[in-house]
């Protein structure tokens, strides 16, 4: 068993980092909304799912049916990322406006938000199921229907680390995720809207009295978190070349696990948690087999909640909130 881990160490590391990057990007949405509103947006998984369809739609509009290269590739990648970000960001904003805002105004209990989130999540899933499932198809089987996405790149080895080969697509996913994390970090720490987000997370009452428009800050938080899920969605379809209406469910819960692992409310924690979860899954499956992947991930969630409920890095966006 451990021999497998050793012999598969570098390939597992590469796979783990690539998948972990996607977890991390989705985790940002959970962690940002939690930081500002102290609630978990469980419909965020559908924000990701709709992003994958946004990317697919963009590819169809562009008429891309097979791998492209060079500048065309860069252009197409940019456009599907934009398409996915618009789809995901738009969905996240709609969720805030339709499913949460009125509850916030009325000071509803946390349970009400949770129910609203689950309702919105199921609604969006079933809505896309209607679009995706062919006429006359047996509904219980439909969860497995995969919608193929045209391959955008020839996946080929770039270089190797030890005995492991680094493929261009894995590197793209990893680098893409890291770049977006840096951009987000700059937005939150260097810009005025970021200042508003941090102020609201730390002390919403004073923020309002300093002239911060909380509704706008909340909307921006959903938009930015949604856009990050959109980037994740674009990278996901490039890497896996398919999607399904159910795709958000597992990835969403995994990303939530990553957010909790890193310390929910903490942006850098989302990155650390996402990469850590991806690596743990990859090493675990190399020892036990891929059928254990989800068991490993959720055992980690339980262990983290039992022994370190504040996560690896602890809370930070709203730490020391008065």
């Amino acid at each position, binding site marked *: 068993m451990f021999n497998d881990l050793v012999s598969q160490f570098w390939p597992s590391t590469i796979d783990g980092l690539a998948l972990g990057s996607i977890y991390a990007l989705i985790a940002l949405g959970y962690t940002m909304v939690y930081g500002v509103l102290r609630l978990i947006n469980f419909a965020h998984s559908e924000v990701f799912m709709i992003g994958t369809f946004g990317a697919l739609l963009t590819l169809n509009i562009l008429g891309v049916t097979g791998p492209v290269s060079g500048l065309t590739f860069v252009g197409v990648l940019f456009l599907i990322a934009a398409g996915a970000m618009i789809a995901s960001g738009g969905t996240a904003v709609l969720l805030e406006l339709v499913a949460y805002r009125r509850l916030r105004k009325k000071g509803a209990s946390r349970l009400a938000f949770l129910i609203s989130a689950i309702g919105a999540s199921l609604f969006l899933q079933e809505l896309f199921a209607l679009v995706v499932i062919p006429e006359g198809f047996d509904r219980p089987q439909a969860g497995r229907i995969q919608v193929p996405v045209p391959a955008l790149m020839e996946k080929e080895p770039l270089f190797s680390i030890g005995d492991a080969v680094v493929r261009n697509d894995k590197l793209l996913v990893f680098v893409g995720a890291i770049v977006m994390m840096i951009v987000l970090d700059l937005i939150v720490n260097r*810009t*005025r809207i970021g*200042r508003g987000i*941090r102020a609201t997370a730390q002390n919403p*009452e004073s923020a*309002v009295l300093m*002239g*911060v428009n909380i509704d706008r800050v909340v909307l921006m938080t959903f938009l930015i978190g949604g856009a990050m899920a959109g980037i994740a969605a674009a990278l996901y379809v490039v890497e896996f070349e398919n999607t399904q209406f159910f795709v958000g469910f597992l990835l969403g819960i995994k990303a939530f696990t990553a957010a909790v692992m890193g310390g929910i409310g903490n942006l850098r924690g989302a990155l650390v948690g996402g990469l850590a979860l991806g690596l743990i899954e990859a090493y675990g499956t190399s020892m036990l087999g891929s059928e254990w992947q989800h068991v490993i991930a959720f055992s980690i969630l339980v262990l983290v909640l039992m022994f370190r409920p504040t996560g690896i890095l602890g809370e930070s966006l709203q730490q*020391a909130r008065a």
Partner: protein
Amino acid sequence: MSDVTGGRALLALDQITMRFGGVVAIDGLDLEVRQGEIFALIGPNGAGKTTVFNLVTGVYQPTAGRVAFDGRKINGMKRFSVTKRGIARTFQNIRLFHNMSALENVLVGADAHHRTGFIGAGLGLPWHRREEREGRALARELLDFVGIGHRTEEWAKNLPYGDQRRLEIARALATKPKLLLLDEPAAGMNPAEKRSLQQLIRRICDAGTTVLLIEHDMGLVMEISDRVAVLDFGQKIAEGRPAEVQNNPAVIEAYLGAPADAS
């Protein structure tokens, strides 16, 4: 008591009543703060002073009555728009953004008046850059003004207590208020700190900002205020110049209790 010597009314509370369930916190209160003065609101604990602040800043909506600022009704307005109209406040218990630098705390206040949106900021448009630069210059100026210009980069939670109070004042001033509400600014300060706070309040007023003050330190109130109103059980029991109020029997009774032999 109706000495109409000061400027025009900046803040006017007209027959304000505030009930919380069955409890009447404020009962038919009339209050007028005039442009350019330092006005103190005093009274025993639980008299309703902080409730008045919360009514003025839009945290509470009055059960009855009207709050007017600068000639316009402001009850019913959103809280952030009340700030934009020109009212800022500090808190009895300090409420800074603890995990931000002193400078950033003040910048949040300065942001209130910026006009460029997210897109402008994202594109780094010149207008946005200029506003950001002006905001920083203003923030530094204000930190100097309140006397903590040497601590701009320190985290708010690491500042000593007295400096945190000053930072709260700087943050409030950054919203460029016409009226500044100070809720017990001298609480927990030693005599030296109180003296320099008193000078600071005087300088704020001289710089053109009207000040409405809640304070328990009578020495400070009597020295600094142009006019004083006394609240007791949500009602105004006296109003006037400090010396007048000080000798008012109703005020003495509210603070010390009625003499034992009075019926």
